[in-house]
């Protein structure tokens, strides 16, 4: 039976995703990333969504389906990390 992703792995995923968002969309300005802030349409514009999806697929070897591109999956760093963790869990 597949084991759920450990919390330390989720933390690591969150760290990596946060770093990518800050470097790719905020030119390294960590202070501009609001923990409660919406990423989609704010930090990440429509072209950026494609870049984000490409990154998630390349880095974590998951497939981001079109139907999964929604705020509950991608709109905050926490949501992003949880989404990736679920996808990895499903693959395991």
């Amino acid at each position: 039976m597949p084991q759920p992703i450990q919390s330390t792995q989720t933390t690591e995923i969150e760290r990596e995703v946060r770093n990518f968002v800050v470097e790719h969309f905020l030119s390294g300005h960590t202070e501009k990333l609001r923990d409660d802030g919406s990423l989609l349409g704010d930090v990440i514009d429509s072209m950026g969504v494609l870049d984000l999806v490409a990154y998630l697929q390349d880095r974590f070897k998951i497939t981001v389906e079109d139907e999964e591109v929604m705020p509950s999956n991608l709109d905050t760093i926490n949501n992003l990390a949880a989404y990736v963790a679920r996808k990895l869990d499903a693959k395991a």
Partner: protein
Amino acid sequence: MSDTTVAAPIRISDVVKVWAERSPDRPALLESTGAWTYGQLSSAIADARAWLRGLGVRPGDRVMIVGENCRAFVTILLASAAVDAWPVLVNARLSPREVDEIQSHCGARRVLYTMGVSTHAADHANRHGAVLEERDGFGSVGIGPLNQDVEPEPLDANVSDRVAALIYTSGTTGVPKGVMLSHRNLLFMAEGSARIRSVSPDDRLYGVLPMSHAVGLSVVLLGSLIAGASLYLTPRFDPMSARVLLEKERVTLLLGSPAIFNQILQYAKLRNVSSLKLPALRIISSSGAPLDPATKSGIESLFGMVLHNGYGVTECSPTIALTRPETPRTDTSIGVAFPGVEINLMGSGGQAAPAGGVGELRVRGPNIMKGYYRAPEETAAAIDGEGWFNTHDLARLDGDHLFIVGRTKDLIVHRGFNVYPAEVEAVLNAHPEVFRSAVVGRAVGGDEEVVAFVQPHPGSAVTRHDLAEFAILHLAAYKRPSQIVLVSAMPVTPTGKIVKGELRKLAEGNLGSKELARLPV
């Protein structure tokens, strides 16, 4: 579409009445949070009229709506028009400075914010100390404080001539101006647009173009409602969510901008798909910015159908010309004049341009704005005594089809030769590694140099040398850029138009030989 028992619409809010009476259960507006039929939309507008009066809104008052596409935005807009207030439509993605400038200039009686769908609107609402209200079907709406220091504008005796929308042009040069569009302007545009595309109650339109801008307002929103069609509202675009919705909801008309279509091409590249056939889709059309031939052919190959093109400016409600479904083009002509609109190309010296020659495009017709708000001199400069509006765009005619060559102010004169930036951009954009480019002039010792800003596709390793070699192959020497600057993003307006004014300033600064990683936003 005509019905002898229902009067023709006079105010833009009247377009809903026909369908609310004839087919109240047909879907009118749909979004992720819910949907309204024509009957429900009509009721919502009636409720909102009373609500606005309760908020102290009087005929002639300016009601500023800071928002993104949603039922709340549409309802407040139409209710404001119904009570003869002036809806001032503001894209929530504008900066605080821009929003505050508009609020100050128009003398808004109330500012309302569609917070339910837009974090940008919520940010402005919070800045302005708006009070939150939850309304049925609206979600959260912010209500700004009542401005007791403003007076309503007098109303035109003729209802059709009253202001139905006040839209501030972001433009690509200069200071934004408030364009006053009448009920007549907008209904003329809505009716004509719907007729040209044979829009009917069986149609489902994708409403992604911002309704705070002229084309989203008159062509998409009012063009849909006037025909009894269904409109899917979305406040933001991403190609993946769009693909899902277009397919699932069997959208029949997709009106977008070149930026949107380019993103769809990038999506196809990411997904490695060469075909995106959507059987219900019958018309796709681009407007709002110049359409590149590479984008047109890419999209046509992907969708297996013609990508139409159109052109307009806010001051003309906005459509001036568009390609027709019955006479599709393989080039990027902006099409033939909108029915009922006259066009004229003025050459140098104020004479008509010679046949096939380039001239400054002027327009006259029921689509011409009432004027710029509180700017009579600018209005007089824009519309002459015979009603001709000067677009300051350069165009030429090939038969009855128009081609935009560039903006008068964009023309570069290098070594005595005219260089049209649009032509140089088209060449650079044809390079397979280039996503988009923008060419501006830089004054140097009595001459003007051609400077090209080029944004490559993500991950591309193309160099300035590669592009310079490419330019040598395709451009006469005097047209080739003196400098090519690689950028990872362009400064754009909320509707995706490149802001050349900012690029000119950069070009005049000390760019040296460095490649800019990202332009300041």
